[in-house]
């Protein structure tokens, strides 16, 4: 690898500044092209028939009448898809099983959740496709729905998948797809040596990422067997791979063109409509476009798991934690694959605890198959562990931040699931909150309280490719395969600009399709500015190396003799020097042709992220409503390439964490029908629900990255639910153990605590 042309000791020129957004004009003028904005001549519209039942055997599907409706061009069912291999294939942050994936795209013999796709139609118009759905008759045999992990894990539970087995239960049918265990030290001895032990039980509701743009796909299929899919996705290469797997066609026959994406948060890392649109295009020979309604998004895309969690933690009187036991059961949804393993590995990750035992259960239930959601698995678990730590701190009479600093993980602390940490910034996030104007301010008034909590996320490396092209006028473009969901175009442009001595505005960032760039893993795991940024850095270095060779050619000297400083190329004793990149760019055609830097990485050196959040609340004792008065989040970014975007990630994640804490939940009836499949009843935070979210960017450079970058996209969602619960406790003396902490739950807890359970109004009678 080339030596760094950036001299960080004298500070960066572009990195750390706040240039104007490269995607701004397109987005404020309506010109940005999202997935649903694509249209092609002769295009058909596809719609999906979905199961009204949570658990049912599909005995027959009759669609002849639908096919006869004028304008209907094709109907497909599960029989039109090949049976995928039943084995786990790692893919990004989650692993994928082709059989389960295929069965989720179109149900085979069983419908496993309300909203499960059963058939799909392509017709000349959307309304005709919708009419055709009404003409499809499906004969169902109803089966008892299994809606919670507790029901699913019970001995007599109805079984979702008769073929599902786990290692512990041998050949016994089960709903437990996996039991994983992490163990260090001896928890029994650890608890014995503790002077204070707290043991609590928690439940959290299934929640959705809530991106405003529904899923979409437009597919074409040519008589040459080549396909193109236009869609809004975080992972065009994953869409290609998964669609190929589901349809049984070669990966190389599909090109995926990523559209501008209207939010993802992990939810757009898998496929729903893409293989269906392509299947219908293959059947009809015409382009097919499909777009989900909001109800479909909520019922049939992948939310994240609800969970049942038990935490036991013990500490000495001085606050030093001696042992922790954690039991986690996560809803996987209809097919295995909840983020419970990540939950197990994150739940105690901020702390150095000598004796640890963590049990994690991945449990199938009759709910939509879960998908990734911003730090998948970590938020539920942190809600539990971080409230127990708060209680320990209180029992010890220690400030909750001091408690975290006392027990906090540092460089060399072994991670519960892996090797010791390299340099990390957890303690720094605690110190940042401790020293913040917020934490040192007084909070006065009745029923008000302040809570803090911390969170961990791994961040990810994985594969990325990048190209840096030098234009004839000395500007550049940086081409990657990473869809931009949080500002990565800006960070990529800035990294290239830093290396090439250009202004950020002189570098145009481009996200291209799967044929035009080397394999690039999903935009997820907060990996793009880290890993794709690393590829961009190296590609820009490669372009710089080529530029120096050209200058050397001009000056008839050795490339090693050419230096690049302050935007100019120099060579000792050469009268032609110095020249700028703009002057040199004009000479490229005569010195060997275009300059295009390239790099591919399978990035190592991932630096984990920590965040600590402080929240003030006021609780309305009459209604149970919790108002967020003030919120400050401190997060270790490693190095903030574009601080405004880093703050945007911190604020956005915090806002989602607050929604998760207070309002959001999937509500089902006893038959497993979702009762709130719309944005009126699935209540996400609106503007007046939130205060200004203050941000403190902590920069403890990641030693594994040339610029010190860690990922910043996810970890800020982790602390808020626990911080809010701890604040509520300080406000009204009640510890909440269920999410969301919606008015009925809070009111019930307050009334129960004050010894008036009988006076709980009907509205507060939540299970």
């Amino acid at each position: 690898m080339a030596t760094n042309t950036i001299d960080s000791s004298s500070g960066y020129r572009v990195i750390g500044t706040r240039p104007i957004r490269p995607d701004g004009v397109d987005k404020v003028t309506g010109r940005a092209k999202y997935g649903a904005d694509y249209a092609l001549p002769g295009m058909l519209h596809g719609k999906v028939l979905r199961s009204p039942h949570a658990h049912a055997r599909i005995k027959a599907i009759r669609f002849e009448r639908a096919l006869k409706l004028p304008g209907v061009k094709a109907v497909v069912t599960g029989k039109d898809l090949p049976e995928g291999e039943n084995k786990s294939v790692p893919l990004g942050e989650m692993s994928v099983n082709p059989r389960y994936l295929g069965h989720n795209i179109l149900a085979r013999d069983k419908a496993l959740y309300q909203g499960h796709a059963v058939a799909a139609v392509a017709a000349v118009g959307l309304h005709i496709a919708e009419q055709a759905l009404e003409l499809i008759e499906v004969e169902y045999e109803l089966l008892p729905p299994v809606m919670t992990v507790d029901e699913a894990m019970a001995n007599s539970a109805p079984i979702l998948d008769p073929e599902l087995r786990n290692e512990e239960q041998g050949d016994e049918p089960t709903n437990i797809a996996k039991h994983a265990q992490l163990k260090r030290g001896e928890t029994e001895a650890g608890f014995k040596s503790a002077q204070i032990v707290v043991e609590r039980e928690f439940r959290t509701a299934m929640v959705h990422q809530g991106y405003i743009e529904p899923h979409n796909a437009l597919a074409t299929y040519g008589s040459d067997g080549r396909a193109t899919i236009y869609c809004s996705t975080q992972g065009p290469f994953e869409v290609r791979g998964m669609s190929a797997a589901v349809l049984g066609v070669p990966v190389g026959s599909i090109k995926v063109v990523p559209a501008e994406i209207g939010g993802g948060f992990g939810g757009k890392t898998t496929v729903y409509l893409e293989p269906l649109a392509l299947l219908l295009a293959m059947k009809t020979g015409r382009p097919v476009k499909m777009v989900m309604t909001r109800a479909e998004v909520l019922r049939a895309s992948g939310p994240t798991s609800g969970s049942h969690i038990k935490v036991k933690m013990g500490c000495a009187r001085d606050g030093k934690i001696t042992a922790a036991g954690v039991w986690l059961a996560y809803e996987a949804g209809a097919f295995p694959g909840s983020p419970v393993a990540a939950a197990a590995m994150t739940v105690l990750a901020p702390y150095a605890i000598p004796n640890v035992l963590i049990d994690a259960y991945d449990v199938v239930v009759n709910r939509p198959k879960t998908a990734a959601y911003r730090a998948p698995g970590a938020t539920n678990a942190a809600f539990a562990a971080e409230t127990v730590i708060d209680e320990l701190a209180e029992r010890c009479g220690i400030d909750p931040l001091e408690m975290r600093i006392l027990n906090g993980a540092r460089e060399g602390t072994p991670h519960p699931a892996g090797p010791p940490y390299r340099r990390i910034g957890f303690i720094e996030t605690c110190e940042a909150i401790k020293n913040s104007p917020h934490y040192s301010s007084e909070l006065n008034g009745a029923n008000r309280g302040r809570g803090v909590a911390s969170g961990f996320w791994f961040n990810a490396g994985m594969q990325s490719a990048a190209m840096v092209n030098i234009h004839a006028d000395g500007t550049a473009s940086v081409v990657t395969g990473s869809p931009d969901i949080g500002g990565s175009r800006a960070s990529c442009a800035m990294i290239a600009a830093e290396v090439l001595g250009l202004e950020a505005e002189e570098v145009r960032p481009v996200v291209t399709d799967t044929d035009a760039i080397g394999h690039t893993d999903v935009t997820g795991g907060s990996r793009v500015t880290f890993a794709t940024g690393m590829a961009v850095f190296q590609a820009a270095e490669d372009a710089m190396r080529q530029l120096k060779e050209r200058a050397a050619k001009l000056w008839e000297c050795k490339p090693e003799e050419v230096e690049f400083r302050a935007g100019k190329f120099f060579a000792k004793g050469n009268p032609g020097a110095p020249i700028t990149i703009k002057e040199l760019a004009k000479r490229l055609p005569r010195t060997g042709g275009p300059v295009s830097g390239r790099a591919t990485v399978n990035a190592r050196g991932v630096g984990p992220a920590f965040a600590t959040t402080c929240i003030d609340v006021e609780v309305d004792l009459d209604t149970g409503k919790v108002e967020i008065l003030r919120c400050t989040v401190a997060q270790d970014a490693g190095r903030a390439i574009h601080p405004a975007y880093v703050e945007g990630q911190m604020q956005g994640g915090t806002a989602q964490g607050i929604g998760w804490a207070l309002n959001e939940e999937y509500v089902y009836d006893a038959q497993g029908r979702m009762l709130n499949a719309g944005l009126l009843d699935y209540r996400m935070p609106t503007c007046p629900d939130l205060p200004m979210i203050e941000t403190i960017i902590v920069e403890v450079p990641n030693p594994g990255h040339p610029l010190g970058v860690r990922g910043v996209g996810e970890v800020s969602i982790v602390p808020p639910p626990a911080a809010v619960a701890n604040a509520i406790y300080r406000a009204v003396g009640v510890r909440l153990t269920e999410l969301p902490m919606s008015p009925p739950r809070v009111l019930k807890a307050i009334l129960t605590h004050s010894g008036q359970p009988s006076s709980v109004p009907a509205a507060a009678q939540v299970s």
Partner: protein
Amino acid sequence: MAEPRKIRMTVNGQAREGWAEPRRLLADFLREDLGLTGTHIGCEHGICGACTVLLNGEAARSCLMLAVQADGAELMTIEGLARGGVLHPLQEAFWEHHGLQCGFCTPGMLMAAYDFLRVNPDPTEEEIREALSAVLCRCTGYQGIVRAVKAAADRMRSAP
């Protein structure tokens, strides 16, 4: 299926016409028949506000209206906010103050803010937050959006 009806409307100052079945949503008509895809559809039941347009000068959800109801109306969509290639102060402010991330809610947010600032050109932060409750954003936590609307209001007052 009812027969399509001919409808005429003024959109962003231009006379437009087309055929629409009575059941066709105004949002779909704008996006698919008139090619104005800047108006986004996020929930099709009037909650997210991404589809907000101005109908005869007032903010309206184009997903809650039928195209035939807009026959004869004057409409403004996000594509009509910039004039002669010059961004509206709100657009400038959203761009400068990071009043967006993914940008999907932005057209609705801008149209709602445009309507609001005409009624209340000098709003407090609280008033801005209340007004913007009509549009959901999932990316930003609304920080940059509130800042942008305030900045645009200040600028519009000082240079009318």
